[in-house]
């Protein structure tokens, strides 16, 4: 028997010790209850995201660092989309306005529109698209490989479809809204149909729970 086969035998024991300590601590000081969510799906464990190099609507770099230090609501769409994307962006503006009026909200999440059509969605185009919905909204585009690098880490999928010419296509894309926590980790998602008041209240519940257990 080699050392290699013996090693895994000790690992579970080592892993149990902090878990037991944690359980003792939690029972000792009545842990906060996980929030009851109406629309969001909370990841059992937030998923760390590897860095990516993209560009915002003012042609400034937008990287993983831009997701750190605050909460982010992210939508993945394209500006040539006449129905679902403007509806979702207008809905996110409603969420933001609701949070602005909520004294419990304090610091607001940033809302980021990531383009899944970077060939057509230039920073200039995003600069006249995203602020239309809310002055604070950020638009992000960039190298298609870098968009893919981010989206495949968080389960967002998209693909070109239809159209009669090279510049005349549609893009199928995930409709979910992704919530990143202030470490830049993928924390929760909001499936469709989106209801702004539920997204706002779920966001506050998730954030408060996160801060309570941190």
């Amino acid at each position, binding site marked *: 028997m080699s050392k290699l086969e013996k090693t895994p035998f000790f690992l579970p024991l080592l892993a149990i010790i902090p878990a037991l300590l944690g359980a003792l601590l939690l029972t000792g000081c009545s842990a906060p209850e996980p929030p009851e969510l109406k629309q969001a799906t909370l990841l059992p464990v937030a998923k760390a995201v590897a860095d990516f190099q993209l560009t915002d609507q003012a042609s400034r770099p937008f990287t993983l660092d831009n997701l750190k230090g605050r909460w982010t609501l992210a939508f993945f769409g394209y*500006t*040539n*989309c*006449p*129905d*679902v994307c*403007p*509806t979702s962006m*207008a*809905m996110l*503006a*409603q969420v933001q306005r609701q949070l602005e009026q909520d004294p419990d909200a304090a610091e607001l999440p940033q809302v980021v529109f990531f383009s899944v059509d970077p060939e057509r969605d230039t920073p200039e*185009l995003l600069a*006249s*698209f*995203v602020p*239309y*919905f809310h002055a604070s909204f950020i638009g992000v585009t960039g190298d298609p490989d870098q968009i893919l690098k981010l989206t495949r880490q968080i389960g967002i*999928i998209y693909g070109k*479809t*239809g159209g009669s010419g090279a510049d*005349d296509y*549609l893009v*199928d*894309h*995930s*409709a*979910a809204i992704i919530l990143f926590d202030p470490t830049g980790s993928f924390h929760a998602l909001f*499936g*469709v*149909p989106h209801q*702004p008041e539920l997204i706002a209240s779920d966001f506050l519940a998730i954030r408060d729970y996160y801060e309570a257990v941190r």
Partner: protein
Amino acid sequence: MKRVMLALTLAATSWLAAAQPDIQIEDAWVREAPPSARMLAAYMTLKNPADQDQVLVEVQSPAFSHVMLHRSEVIDGVARMIHLDEVVIPAGGSVQLEPGGLHLMMPAPETRLSAGDRVPLVLLFADGNQIEVQAEVRKKP
């Protein structure tokens, strides 16, 4: 004299009724879009009080290069737009064009449209009926 007026009014009314297409269109509107938008969408309710199905086959507008019948749907979390050749308005029923569902997709607006503007749309039906509506541009949350 009153009788003559009444008769004329009734005659005019019945002539109008006969010339009226069977389809009623309510609440036609176009979503106001960001300045850079190259695609707009229009919505409305089509009611068919007649006892025969009506089939919308084409929509034209001088305000856009062309108009397409589309349906958005989300399947397994992915939003898609499906191109439709026609939309059937069932006899005695109605069809709703609304955000996230059936809509008119209208590429390349001739001018920037702002809330309050009116967009002429001509709806062509399989039986040859044509209905023109003025869709109001609205800024919607």
